[in-house]
């Protein structure tokens, strides 16, 4: 396994990125619908947060202005929808139908294969969803969101967030090897991620104690970190270093965890049959 990998690092996996990209392009309608959904979501959160800020009566709530909040929430929504690629269902289906056996007889690492499969779709879907929503938000708030180096930090940080999210999804999918069913667990995961990562409500709005706890969990590194970097006009070097090192820390931990969990769990197949 290792010897073949050393000859061609990741080249064989790039074919999967290409294939899943092509597959996504095949289903044009679903791309447009997902964009439509993101735009409608933006409109909804726009009105929601406008009325929250109106009733608060102040310009700044919990240290965030209305434009910042809207940008945070709307773009979080768009990023979520580009990250929603049903990886957990795919893995679950592979396991339930036994198709996973077909991957076991190929000279591939299942984790890496899925990672390359997912990333290209997400990157593509990111441009389809996030760019239009960003423009819409800027129009709604009168171009008050800074547009400069912060966007670069945001994109970089989203990319790291994608990998963290992938690892979590992969682990949840792996649970299917033990339970043969994935529905409930996945619903639970989605709720936990959407609350604890700051997608539904920005983390700044959480009570202090809870926020402290959440900062120690991997979920906030998926959405809160990139979005905070985006709405901060002049991030300090310290903030940047802290944000990225926390993300990289979680990537290292979760990649190791996901791979070992899968390795241990695939014993279920090798011992008890597919």
């Amino acid at each position: 396994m290792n010897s073949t990998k050393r000859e061609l690092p990741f080249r064989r996996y790039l074919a999967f990125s290409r294939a899943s990209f092509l597959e996504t392009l095949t289903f044009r309608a679903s791309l447009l619908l997902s964009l439509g959904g993101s735009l409608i979501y933006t409109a909804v959160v726009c009105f929601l947060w406008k009325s929250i800020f109106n009733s608060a009566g102040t310009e700044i709530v919990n240290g965030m202005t209305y434009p910042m909040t809207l940008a945070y929430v709307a773009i979080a929504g768009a990023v979520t929808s580009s990250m929603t690629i049903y990886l957990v269902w795919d893995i679950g289906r592979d396991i339930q139908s036994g198709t996973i056996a077909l991957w076991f007889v190929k000279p591939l690492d299942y984790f890496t294969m899925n990672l390359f499969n997912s990333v290209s779709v997400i990157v593509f879907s990111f441009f389809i969803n996030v760019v239009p929503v960003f423009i819409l938000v800027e129009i709604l708030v009168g171009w008050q969101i800074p547009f400069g180096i912060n966007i670069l930090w945001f994109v970089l940080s989203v990319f790291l967030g994608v990998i963290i999210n992938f690892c979590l999804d992969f682990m949840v999918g792996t649970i299917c090897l033990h339970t043969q069913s994935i529905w409930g667990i996945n619903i639970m995961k989605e709720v936990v991620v959407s609350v604890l990562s700051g997608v539904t409500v920005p983390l700044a709005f959480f009570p202090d104690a809870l926020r402290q706890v959440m900062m120690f969990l991997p979920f906030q590194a998926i959405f809160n970190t990139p979005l905070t970097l985006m709405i901060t006009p002049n991030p300090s070097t310290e903030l940047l270093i802290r944000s990225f090192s926390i993300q990289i820390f979680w990537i290292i931990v979760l990649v190791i965890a996901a791979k070992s969990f899968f390795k241990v769990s695939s014993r279920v197949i090798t011992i008890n049959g597919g």
Partner: protein
Amino acid sequence: MEPVIQINNICKTFKVLNRKTGIKGAVQNLFSRDYKEIKAVDDISLTINEGEMVGYLGPNGAGKSTTIKVMTGILEPTSGNILVNGRVPYKNRSVNAQDIGVVFGQRSQLWWALPVIESFRILKEVYAIPDDVYKKNMQMFSDLVNVENLYNKPVREMSLGQRTLCDILSSFLHNPGIVFLDEPTIGLDVSMKSKIRYLISELNKEKGTTIILTTHDMGDVDALAKRIIIIDQGKMIYDDNIAHLKTFFGAYRTIKITLPNEQFDGADEEKKAKFIADITSQIIAKNEKARNIHVSLDESELSILVPEAEVPLIEVLSTSQEILPVKDVQIAEISTESIIRKIYEGNESKSKLLSSEVKEKAE
């Protein structure tokens, strides 16, 4: 010839929960620790040489797929030794995977939404196939079966036959030493079956690929396999060439009697079964030695399988003529299919004979 697969005394046991039924039972199942062990593969030993084409047969649930999964490295055997291409497959799954091809007839390894040529391109990367090998193989595929016109068709729009054809081709793309074909002709029409058989046999000849073929279609076996291995209930009950199987059971022949057409117009299964039982007992009544004959009915054709070692064919024929309105008669050599069926149906004495013979050979 080099042995490419060497299996010694492989066993594979699965732990299965003793399930109870009903609502109460289903709740109990949640907490139950009451497992029973099922022996899916029970002490199988075999050697397969390079370039062989082996038919691997057995009734549903006999343990065929389990053995295949052990050989491909998906499953780890409970006990016993296995070497495929000189490696232990479950320990070196990735390396082993580079040298084998697998087709599961009921699952496709092709990319559903993409034109099939894209799947080939992906597999080229997955197996790191050099350009010249890839080109040569693609050329060979189009020489064997005319498939270029399919290349741009998305897999999901293909017929089952076209998809299977492409699946088989894709499993040969990286020049594997061994290809496992698990029921490749399942659900296909006659002409597609023969096309696929032609393809498999040509690939075996031209590339010298070792092929392990599991199937329920005796047509596949007759057309492709020179050697067959039969397992039942996890045990190997036959391992020899196909000709030997026929001579071993050669003492059987079938009398096919055509009855007047109108006799079974509108008759239901029950009536037919009663008729069969009736005829059987009448023949046995008149001819005591004929107690092991097997009668079956298909439309208006009655088949009587006669073990010639016990009773002369001619005697059964004359008895039948007395009790039946015979329109036409035909005497057929036993087909592979009926031999295999006899084995599957648990012809105890024969199975025992066979297995004792296998043991003798082993010794």
